[in-house]
C-alpha cells in the first residue's frame, strides 16, 4: 500500500476530487495548508502592483491506494491539477505499513 500526499492549487480541488472519484478512488483527506517550494520569497508583479508572497495557500490531498493503483492515481492527479505554471504543486509517495478501519477492526487492503 502507498500513501500519496498531493500539494495542489486550491481551486483545483474539485477537479482532482472528481477525477479521482471517476477512477474509483472514493476516500481522501483534504487539508488547507500553506507552503512554498521554488517560489520561495518571490514577489509577484501583477498590473504594476507588488505582492510579497511568503507562504502560498495550497490544498493537501491525501490518498491511500493499493500498489497496483498507484500509477493511475498519480497520473489522474497530474492531469487534473496541471496548469503548466510554476506553483502547480508536488506529490509525495510513501510506503504504508498498515491501515485499520476503526469501526470493524479490519486491516490491510480490506480497510482501504
Amino acid at each position: 500500500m502507498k500513501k500519496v500526499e498531493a500539494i495542489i492549487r486550491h481551486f483545483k480541488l474539485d477537479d482532482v476530487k472528481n477525477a479521482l472519484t471517476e477512477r474509483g478512488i472514493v476516500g481522501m483527506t483534504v487539508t488547507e495548508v500553506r507552503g512554498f517550494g521554488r517560489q520561495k520569497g518571490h514577489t509577484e508583479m501583477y498590473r504594476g502592483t507588488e505582492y510579497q508572497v511568503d507562504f502560498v495557500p495550497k490544498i493537501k490531498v491525501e490518498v491511500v491506494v493499493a500498489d497496483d493503483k498507484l500509477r493511475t492515481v498519480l497520473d489522474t492527479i497530474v492531469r487534473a491539477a496541471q496548469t503548466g505554471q510554476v506553483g502547480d504543486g508536488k506529490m509525495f509517495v510513501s510506503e504504508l505499513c498498515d491501515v485499520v478501519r476503526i469501526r470493524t477492526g479490519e486491516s490491510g487492503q480490506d480497510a482501504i
Partner: protein
Amino acid sequence: MIRSNVLAAKARLAKGHEDFRARHAAGCPGVELCALTSNLRDAVIGELIEATLAELGPRGSRGLLSEIAVVAHGGYGRRDVAPYSDVDLMILHPPRAAPRVAPLAERLLRDVFDMGLDLGHSVRTVRDACRLGCHDPMICSSLVDSRLLAGSPSLFDCFMRRFRRQVRWRRTRLMRAILASRNAERLRYGETVFLLEPNIKRSPGTLRDLSLLRWIGLVRYGLREPRQLCERGLLVREDLETIERAYEFLLRLRNDLHFHAGQANDVLNRSEQLRLAQSRGYPPGAGLLPVEKFMQDYFRHTNQASHVVAQFLAKAGSRERLGKLATLLFGHRVEDDFRVGPVGLTATRRGLARLRGSLTAILRLVDLANLHDVPIAPATWQAIRQEAGRLPAEPALTPGYPLAGASPATGRGEHTEPPPEACRYFLSLLGHPGRAGGLVRDLHEAALLERFIPEFARARGLLQFNQYHKYTVDEHCIRAVEFAERLLTDAGPVGRVYRGIADKHVLHLALLIHDLGKGFLEDHREVGLRIAHETARRLGLPAHEAEALEFLVHKHLRMNHLAFRRDTSDEELVVRFAVQVGSPELLQMLYVLTAADLGAVGPDVWDGWKSEVLTDLYHRTMQQLAGDSPATTVDHLFHQRRREIRAALGPLADEPWFARHLEALPGSYLSATPPPQAAADLRLLAELPGGGVTARAQYLAEAATVQFTIATSEDVAVGIFHKLTGALTSHGLEIRSAQIHTLADGLVLDRFWVQDRDFAGPPPAERLETINRALEASLREPSASPAFRRTWLSAGRRMTVAPRPKTNVNCDNSTSDRYTIIDVFATDRTGLLYTIARTLFEEGLSVWRAKIGTYLDQVVDVFYVTHVSDRQNCKVLDQARLEAIRRRLLAVIEALEEAPVPETQTP
C-alpha cells in the same frame, strides 16, 4: 449468585419495558410514560427493600426501616425516567444506626445493580447530606429533586426542611455555582439552541435547562415546582405553558431515542432526525424536507424554553429593588422616558406606558441601548416581550414568498407596514456596530424582527440539512451580523476594509437577510433577490442603497465561488468580476459580507487560510476598480520601495529636491512603478524647465507596446489628460493602459502604454519623436479637437467581440477622502478614452489619477476627479450633479458605439 427474587424483579422490569415500548409506539405522551416507568421502578425497588430486610433477620427487620429513609433524587426523583435512565438512590440514616445500615445498603445496592439498572448511590446522615448539598452545585441540584421511596417520612421531612433552609441561607453563592456549572456544560454542548446535532439532555434549551428552573426556583424562592412559581407570580402563565409543552416534547423524544438505540442515547444526530421525521409522518412541503420541518419544531420548543429560562434567571439573579434604586441614584436620563443605569437601559413608568402598543417606541429603546452600548434591563425587556404579542396589526404568518408564480392563496399575505419612524430606528440600529447583532436577536425572539422582515418568521429554526452549516438559517444570519461587528477591532485586512465602509447599515442588512431565501424549491439567491427588493421598499431605503442591497444578497456567493474554486490569477476572470461588481464601495461590502458569511457557518470555518485566498481576490479586483487597493498600501512596502529608488538615484538622492520629492511620492505611484523607472522619472522632472513639458517614448518589446512618459506641471494647461489622450488618439495609437499621477509641487507625471497598429514591431525612432513633439505641443498650444483615424479596428480583431456587455458608469464618494472615483465599464471603441476625458474636462472636473485598462474588448477605466468649489478642489458631493455627469458620460459613450465604424482603410 443472583437470588431468585432479584431475577424475578429483573423479569418484571423487562416485561414492563416491552409494555412501555408498545404504549410509546401507540402515542403515549412522554410525561405519562416516564411516570409509568418511574412507578414500576418504585414498586420493584420497594419489594427488594422488604425482601432484603427480611433476609437480614431480626437485626434488620422492620424496626430499621422506621429509622432510615431511602430517597430517590436527580431525574429519578423528578420522575422523568426514560427507558434507560439511571437510578440515583440515597439512604439517609441517623448517626446511631450507621452500623446496622451498612449491610442493608450493601445488599440493596448490589441487588439494584443486578436487576440491570445503572445506579448512583450514597449513604449519608441528614447532616452530611445537607453539608454536601450546600457546597457542591452538582449534589445540590440533584438533592433538590429528592423524593421518599421507603422508610421514615419524619426523617425525610427533617432532611428536606433543613436542606431548604441551609440552601436559602447560601442562595447567592449557590446560584452562582449552579449557573457556572451549567454554563460550563452549555459551552461543552454548544452555546446556542440552534445546533444541528443537539444533545437533548444537555444542549441549551433542553431538559437540563428545564431542571435548572426547578433548582434555581428552590434555591432562590424555596419553590421547586414551576407551577408554584407561576402561582406566586414569578413565572407568567404563558411561559409556564411554553415550558410544559417543551418538557413533554423532549421527554417523548428522549423515550424515542432510548427505545430505538436500545441504550441511553441523548444525541439527536442526523440519522435519528431522518428516522423520526419519517416515523412521525412529517409531510414534505414546498422546498422543505420533512426532516427540516421536524427540526423546526424541535428548535421552536427548545428556543422558547431557553428564552423563558433565561428571563427567569435574569430576574432571579437581579436584586430588582436594589437595581431600581441604583438606577435612580446613579443612572442618567438619556431621553425623557429612559434611563441608563447599572442594570442597563430601563424605561420609567411613563416610558413603559409609551412602549405599550408602539413599535416605534420599542425600536427607539433598542436603538438607544445600542448607541449607549448597554444591555436592556431584564425587567424592561420582559415588559416589552409581553407587549410584543399584543401589538396591533400582526403581519400575516405566511409571507408571500416565493412570489413568482405563487398560489393565489398568498394574496392574503398583505403585510402591515411598520411605521416609517420605526424603520428609521431599525436602520440606525443596523448602522452602528456595537450590540446590534445581539439586540436583533432579542427582537427576533420577541417576534418583533418579523415586523420589519416578515421572512424571519418562516426562517425561525429552519434547518439547513447539510454537513456544512452548524446553525439554523435565522441564527446563521444573525451570527453573520455579529461577526461583522466584531471586525471593528480586527487587525487583519477584513477589519481594515470593514472600518472604512460608510454605509454599514446596508452591509448589515444584507447579512441579516442573505440566506432568508432558503427553504424554497427555487435557488435561494433568486428568492433572496426578491426578498431584498421587498425589504428595501418596506424599510424605505433610497434607490442606490436598495440597488446595493439587492446586489449583495443576490451575489452573496459569487466572490466565495471565485476565490475558492477559480484561478484568480486569470486576469480576464478578475476583470469580469470587477465589471459585475462595478464599484470599489460595493466590492468592499461584498468582501466583508463573504468573510462574515463564512465566519457565521460555524466555529473555525473562517481561518487565516481562507482569509488569505479571499483577500487575494479582493486586492486583484480592487486593483481593477480603484487602481490600487487600500489594504495593500502597507507602509513597510513603500518604505522598501523608497529605499530602492534612493539606491537607483545614487548620490542624487541626497540633494534636497530629490529627497523632498522622494518622500512625497504617493502610494499609488510607488506601487505601480518599478524603482529604476521611478528614478528616471524623478530625473526627468528635476530637469523640467519652468512651465515646460517633456515627453519620452520607450518601446517595450515583451508587450509590443510603446510607453510614453510625459512630465509637466499642472499649471501648464487645463485639461492635461484629455489633451494628451487626444494627441495620442489622433496619431492612430490605441491606448491600452494609462496612469496619471499628481506629485509634490503640482508636478504631473502621466504614463501611457499604447499600441501602434501602423507598425509590427518597434516603430522607427522618427515616428516616436513626432509623437513626443505632438504630445508636448498639445499642452503648450491650444488646438482644435483632434482628427481621428480609424485604422486600427481591423476586421480580424472585431471577430473576437463577444456579446457586448452593457456600458456602465459608477460614481463612488466613499472610498477616497479627497476624490470622487468614477468607474467606466465599456467595450473598446474608437476614441473612447479621448471622449471620456473631454467630457470630464467639459464638466469642469480635474483628473488627478487615472487608470485605464483594456482587456480584449472590455475597458475598465478609473478616474479620480475633483471639481472646484469655493476655490478649492473637492469631491463632487452634489448627488444631482453626479447623476448628471454619469448620464452624460453614458450618453457620449453610447453615441460612440452607434457611430458607424468604417471598414479598414489602409493609408
